[in-house]
């Protein structure tokens, strides 16, 4: 499989990168590890004539407990002892991404912006042509939920939920300078599923920042997939909590990915639990309510109703674990 020709740009600083991006927008893509972009390009999915490789932008690298550069490879994160012990919940997500060979090139930034997935989208050009193209690439309708406005492709990144529950923030650089966006609100819940986040055209992820409180949380990530390797999440549940000395809930956050076009936090459900003592019935109620609220569609391998049902199970187990009242399998 060959790629169509493009121009490859290799800036070395963030400023140079965003300037270049400003000039080329919207006819370019950033290229990080390429493990998501290149398969899509090989299948002629929304290819563009310019690639800006982030490989040489040194500011995008570096791992500390406060900040991880967007170009950090997942394998390097995995191997970083300090990071691993500070954020075991994130590590649980990292090691579940794809395969070790993909993680050797795949980066944190690329993972946060990984393209959403759908059985009708992640297909070759002739495959899609034969059915009729869809909204997300080259077409004007949706094969999953037939209508012409919205795409329901599934958000399939593993790291976003695990970073969201730690209230991590993304540092973004753009033509108008730099800003910080919480991972939680970076994704556009109200969008059309095609423009999926609140980044402006040409904006670059520079790093992920961790608030000091993140290290005081107990966190976990649980992923549903058919095989323990290769597969994208059919559901990904991250939870983080802190208990006070007397055992009441001081902080609780929950984020669910793999079910809709963006990872979803459930503060309105977890918030009321803060200040109370963790009990199994409350956790079960929470899980049941989250299950009710997620709306997966059938565009991945496992059926939507099963993924919905498992959301309840996974939430109960994950929240149970971070609250120290675990039940069911680890």
């Amino acid at each position, binding site marked *: *499989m060959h790629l169509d020709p493009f121009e490859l740009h290799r800036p070395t600083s963030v400023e140079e990168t965003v300037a270049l991006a400003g000039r080329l927008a919207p006819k370019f893509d950033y290229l990080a590890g390429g493990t998501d972009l290149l398969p899509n390009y090989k299948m002629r999915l929304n290819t563009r004539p310019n690639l800006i490789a982030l490989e040489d932008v040194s500011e995008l690298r570096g791992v500390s407990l406060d900040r991880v550069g967007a170009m950090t490879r997942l394998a390097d994160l995995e191997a970083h002892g300090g990071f691993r012990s500070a954020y075991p919940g994130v590590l649980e997500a990292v090691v579940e991404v794809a395969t070790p060979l993909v993680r050797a090139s795949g980066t944190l930034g690329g993972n946060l912006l990984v393209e959403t997935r759908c059985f009708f989208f992640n297909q*070759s050009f002739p495959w899609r042509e034969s059915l009729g193209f869809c909204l997300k690439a080259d077409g004007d309708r949706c094969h999953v939920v037939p209508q012409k406005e919205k795409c329901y492709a599934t958000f399939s990144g593993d790291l976003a939920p695990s970073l969201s529950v730690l209230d991590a923030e993304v540092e973004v650089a753009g033509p108008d300078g730099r800003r910080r966006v919480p991972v939680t609100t970076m994704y556009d819940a109200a969008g059309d599923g095609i423009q999926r986040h609140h980044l402006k055209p040409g904006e670059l992820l520079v790093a992920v920042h961790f608030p000091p409180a993140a290290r005081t949380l107990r966190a976990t990530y649980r992923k549903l997939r058919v095989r323990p390797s290769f597969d994208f999440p059919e559901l990904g549940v991250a939870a983080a909590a802190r208990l006070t000395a007397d055992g009441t809930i001081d902080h609780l956050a929950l984020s669910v990915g793999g079910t809709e076009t963006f990872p979803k936090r459930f503060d309105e459900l977890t918030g009321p639990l803060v200040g109370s003592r963790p009990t199994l019935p409350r956790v079960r109620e929470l899980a049941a309510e989250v299950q009710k609220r997620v709306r997966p569609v059938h565009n991945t391998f496992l059926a939507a109703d099963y993924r919905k049902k498992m959301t309840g199970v996974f939430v109960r187990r994950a929240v149970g674990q971070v609250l120290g009242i675990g039940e069911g*399998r680890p």
Partner: protein
Amino acid sequence: MAAPEAPPTYRLIGTRIPYIEGPLKVTGRAEYTDDIKRPGQLIARLLRSPWPHARIRSIDVSAARAMPGVAAVLTGEKYPTPFGVLPITHDETAIAVGKVRYIGDIVAAVAAVDEATADRALQAIRVDVEVLPEYTDPKTGVEKVAEPIHARGLNGTNIQKEVVQHFGDVDAAFAQAHASVRVRGSYAGVTHAFTEPMATIAEATPDGRLTVWSATQVPHYLHRALSEVLGIPMHRIRVIKPEVGGGFGGKSDPLPHEIACAALSLETGRPVKILFDREDVFVTNHGRHPTQNDVRIAVDAGGKILAYDIEALIDGGAWSSFGTVTTYYNGVLSMGPYRVPNFRYRGRRVYTTKPPSGAMRAHGGTNIRYSIELGLDELAEQLHLDPFDLRERNALPPHSTTVNQFRITSTSFVKCLKAARERSGWDDKFRKLPYGRGVGLGCGFYISGSNSPIHFTPKMPQCTVHLKADMDGGIAVHCMQADIGQGSNTLLAVIVAEVVGVDLDRVHVVRVDSDVSPVDIGSYSSRVTFMMGNAARRAGESLRDQLLAAAARVTGYPPEKLVVGHEKIEVRHRPDISISYIDALHAAMERSGALLASGAYTSPPMGGDFKGARAGTAPAYSFAAYVAEVDVDVETGIYKVEKVWAAFDCGRALNRLAVEGQIEGSIHMGLGQLMGETMNYRGSRLMNPSLLEYKIPTPQQMPQVECLLVGDDDPEGPFGGKEAGEGPLIATLPAAGNALYDAVGVRFHELPITPEKVVRGIELRQQSGKSWKGVS
């Protein structure tokens, strides 16, 4: 009574012998088709149909042809001769003629200077069609349809083949039965998914010859199909089989792209290469048929099987492929490992507008076996019998005949049962493990080489092996058998070395090349060990006899008094008197130069005298009894098969290392079909033509495997050996399926058993009020 004679022992046979080409494979030096590059070679790409079923009105290739860098564009009319792997069902063409029959059917082929140019040319081809109705469900295809997919469908239906057989009196047996069970199985299609995509290079040369390198497991059938379709006599075509990166049945049909590639070379006078991408591989398919079967089993009060009554509805996809055989096998491969006195079968294979199904490892024997073994498990429970006891009571005895006239010679099935029961600790586990954990028994039976060669002049041997020993002391072995990773090259060398008494490194297995390799009909039906093994043994014996004759002349002892030792020939019982192998060889060469020897194998006549009697006949059969232990997360339905005890009767294991490899690989593939592999169709459309969405198990999903090789020597197998390439897959699925029942109290009659089905099954059980192991 005389003590039973101890089986003979051998120097090499029966030991653990690493593959002789292993060093080439681990260094990347083994040469696969795509590793070959011919000077000036063009790249071919195929335009595939976007329609499931359509009549072609016209194809305009003028723009494509005019593009710079495009050397040729071919459509179907140029080579319209139909072909197919079975001589009675030639319904394929190299490129579609008149109609397309599935999404992926080849509409046109382009040869160009590179892939990008060829792809651009494909985009420029305009095809005008009349879209025809698609047929996705074989159930509708059994009735008269508006537009049959093939003219040859039975009476205006899409039925490709119907088999009806009845032996004994099934209705009477059911009327007398003490108990019976009915299993309605539903099995999704699965595919081979070998790691090496198909690839072919064809080179027509000015001397009027055509050379074809192809990733094929049956070079001989390819040779024939090329000749028939291209109209070139076989002796002017040379087929070379480079190393092949797995086949499992998927490279056994002559495939349209191989012929199209050759046609493009004839057209351009240049070498042409075609390399499949993964989607090409998936839509070419020829994998295991999506199947629905309805199996009834009757037993008497003691658990003796009285009758099977079986129906199978088989989704064939667009072409016949091996389908006629498949239709028979889905019935007749139920004739072992148990004695079944009454048997009725109706099987129908129906064309649909989907990628064709064909032969895949344990072809025809897998889905039916799953239904039967789950049924037997249920019967054992009804009768309060241990599943092992029930099986043992019904075991086919050695040297017996089945009701449909299969000749059974060796069987160590009872030994398999005993070994699996004992090693697995069955008696302490069955129904005794906690809820969510379980053990299950599944058994297997498979042909060790189809007795009837297909597409072949029946009076000729199924395999011939040639040897050439020259002054360097090396022995070159020629044979068209196809090593596709199963280790047949190694076995060939081992047998020759064993018989001639030389070191293994003296034996060179020459790459398959129809110019020099005598015909063997290829790697399918688990025939190679048995048939090639016997031919190799005979060739070796012929060479050995020439050496013995020469040694006799040198030593003055008569040949009957001489035997081969290790690298020498010695006087029987007088090892001190000997002549070295090299001296004997050189002495033998004084008269004739290089020694030549030949050996062949033809299977003996067998089978009954009725229509279809030969289907399923084989010179020997393999038997298996597997125990699987599973662990289920009952809330998520995610489960793991933790361990498999695989008791297998392949006669004598000729190369233990290779046999273990076949068993372990088979278990992996069987569990794939059980746990998640599926050709996922929506209508006629394959939704998952990728290795990401086609769920081959990962290393973490593999159970521990204990291979229990308990087979006794087969009387006709080479050195007592039988097949181990396909049979080992079969028992895997029902063993695990029955273990799931033991774990959670649900019988899963639909494959694959994905976690969602486990959860659903447990819910249904709970709703029915049935508790399991004390858990409701």
